[in-house]
């Protein structure tokens, strides 16, 4: 073997790059049927994109302070509605002089998330722990008041702030609950397993709207004293999303080979230690893309709290659009376009991140 002459490797022959004409022919007009499809697609694009661009940009009112400035632009967006109301859209009815507290909270959230999602940042574990354990408390004090800060009742929270509060609380609370439920569902103890299954299937079997109705109408009866309305809604959202989280994590747990459980047990690790050090780190890593997927669903679902009377991002724009001060044929649509853009950017960003994670986990496999 050692002395056998080897053939020198050479680079592969290069295929000529297709020119634009060939590209068009191959991808758009390869057959009559294909050409017809191309024409149909072009027509759809023309009917949807052109009117939208005209409405949103070309024919739109860009400056002004009231509805009169928009009425002149019959077939275009009324952007002054958004720019004039941007304070309310972000902060709700939060006291104007105290808005810096919201800013601080949101900046903290943004920094923490950036740190955790950027590849190669050091110290992700401590930062993650701070974000999950300490940040919610700090954020609560900052937003609600206390410790020398003026109190701002939750009834004055709204807009983007409200949306993020509900989404973030749902996420932070549903992770530990979801883990416990997922472990419970795989337990060998029949009572633990039965209760977990019942809990998970109950919440997954009913729409969030009914759960929110329950929080608004039934929870006060059960607790017996008047509960903060927002707190009730937050509890409902957390319970609801923990059931979905449990199923996602259970998927991760099922993907861990049996040998890992056995190796941990054979070393003499107790159940909780083998879960904490061996099984969950791997299972959570595997389910991360789906967990992010759950977060996207939760973020979109936060808009439902407007149905039980909160003014979240969508709710406050909806309320503003019916305000006679701004009533124009285009106000509502403008508001929806803006809210849609904000939601879309957040959700699309997260879904891209999930796809990226899938790639990393798939390619790197099990390190």
């Amino acid at each position: 073997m050692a002395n056998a002459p080897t053939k020198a490797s050479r680079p592969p022959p290069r295929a000529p790059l297709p020119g634009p004409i060939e590209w068009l022919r191959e991808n758009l007009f390869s057959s009559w049927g294909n050409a017809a499809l191309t024409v149909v697609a072009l027509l759809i694009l023309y009917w949807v994109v052109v009117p939208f661009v005209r409405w949103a940009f070309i024919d739109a009112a860009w400056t002004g302070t009231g509805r009169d400035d928009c009425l002149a632009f019959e077939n275009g967006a009324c952007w002054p509605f958004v720019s004039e109301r941007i304070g309310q859209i972000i902060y709700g009815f939060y006291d104007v002089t105290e808005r810096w507290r919201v800013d601080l909270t949101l900046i903290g959230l943004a920094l923490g998330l950036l740190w955790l999602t950027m590849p190669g940042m050091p110290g992700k574990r401590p930062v993650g722990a701070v974000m999950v354990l300490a940040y919610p408390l700090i954020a609560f004090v900052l937003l609600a008041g206390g410790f020398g800060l003026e109190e701002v009742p939750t009834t004055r929270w709204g807009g983007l702030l409200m949306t993020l509060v509900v989404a973030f609380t749902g996420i932070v609370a549903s992770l530990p609950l979801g883990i416990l439920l997922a472990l419970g569902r795989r337990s060998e103890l029949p009572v633990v397993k039965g209760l977990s299954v019942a809990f998970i299937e109950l919440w997954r079997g009913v729409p969030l709207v009914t759960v929110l109705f329950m929080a608004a109408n039934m929870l006060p009866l059960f607790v017996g004293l008047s509960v903060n309305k927002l707190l009730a809604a937050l509890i409902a959202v957390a319970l609801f999303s923990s059931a979905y989280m449990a199923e996602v994590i259970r998927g991760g747990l099922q993907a861990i080979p049996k040998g890992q459980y056995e190796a941990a047990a054979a070393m003499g690790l107790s159940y909780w230690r083998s879960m904490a050090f061996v099984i969950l780190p791997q299972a959570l890593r595997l389910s991360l893309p789906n967990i992010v997927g759950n977060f996207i669903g939760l973020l979109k679902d936060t808009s439902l709290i407007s149905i039980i009377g909160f003014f979240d991002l969508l709710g406050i724009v909806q309320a503003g659009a019916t305000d006679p001060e701004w009533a124009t044929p285009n106000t509502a649509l403008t508001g929806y376009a803006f809210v849609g853009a904000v939601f879309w950017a957040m959700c699309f960003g997260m879904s891209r991140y999930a796809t990226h994670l899938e790639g990393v986990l798939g390619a790197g496999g099990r390190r």
Partner: protein
Amino acid sequence: MATPLRIAWWRRRRTRDLLFQAALIAGVLLLFGIMANNAIQTVERQHIATGFGFLDHTAGFDVVQTLVRYDETSTYGRVLLVGILNTLLVAAIGIVLATLLGFLVGIGQLSSNWLVARLARSFVEIVRNLPLLLQIFFWYFAVLRALPGPRESWGVADAVFLNNRGLYLPAPVAESGFGFVMLAFAAGAIASIFMFLRAKAVRERTGRVSPVAPGTTALLVVPALLASAAAGFPMSFSVPALSGFNFQGGIVVLPEMMALVVALATYTASYIAEIVRAGIEGVARGQTEAAQALGLNRGQMLRLVIVPQAMRQIIPPLTSQYLNLTKNSSLAVAIAYPDLVSVFAGTTLSQTGQAIEIIAITMAVYLTLSLLTSAFMNWYNARVALTER
């Protein structure tokens, strides 16, 4: 035979497990007990009625769309039925449309036509990443409310009209002799099924392929046509027509329902499209080469190899999307389409104040639907698992 070691009962693992589980049950019962106690006290303090007697009381409010007879004298029980039927109606129409659109877009995503694939992909990425409620508001407040009034309706062939009051469609009205036509149609349908099965048996026995489509289609259409000709075409249409400020005749689809159906169908379609794409891609990757090696052509490959296997992957998540659509139809309450949540957990609750009973019933309805769906999925998965090996 060795005598087993004797261990005091309280040192046994089983004892510990039993005690732990007993404590858990006790804790849960305690929690429920406290909640029930609180609820009873509050209900008494606020003089709210309890029990399910209210279902027999007269509701006394109007519901804008009812599939069964309903009037001011009807009971809350009737309201519940009306709500459930309206929910099921929206869900059924939504499911059909979402499936059609979803498969179209899902296959479109795999099209070799660059533009079509991009268009399909953009549809999925846009629709999937926007809150459903926002989309419902968009269709309801921004699109349908912005339509012209009845006098300036958009019409097609003077029979279909669209305006801001709804979509007006001609309604078929059966006249005497219609049953005879239905009978002929049913007979034709049964005959065409037999023809199909026979052709399949012949193909399997002899390998001879004979086209069945023309024959079965003829069997479906011709007997029904002949029968209606014989009976003097016993069906007429009630066509909507403008009288005064509004349309009379035909059937009207409320704008609330249109908005809800369109939003639910497009939103769910974006998820179905992804399921379809993943299903086909997942199968095609490994099986295309095998099928080509067997010498099947592209059409046979799709029909005999890819689609049957892809459907196996597609059906379970598809079913859960149907369930999601049904649950999401509860967003109807935001635009006051009279679904279960809107008329029962909404209006009925605020009139009677019996939150516990009403929300329990509402949730039970959805839970039943969920359990039925997962029963179907278990059955399907068990069947697939059986045929898999």
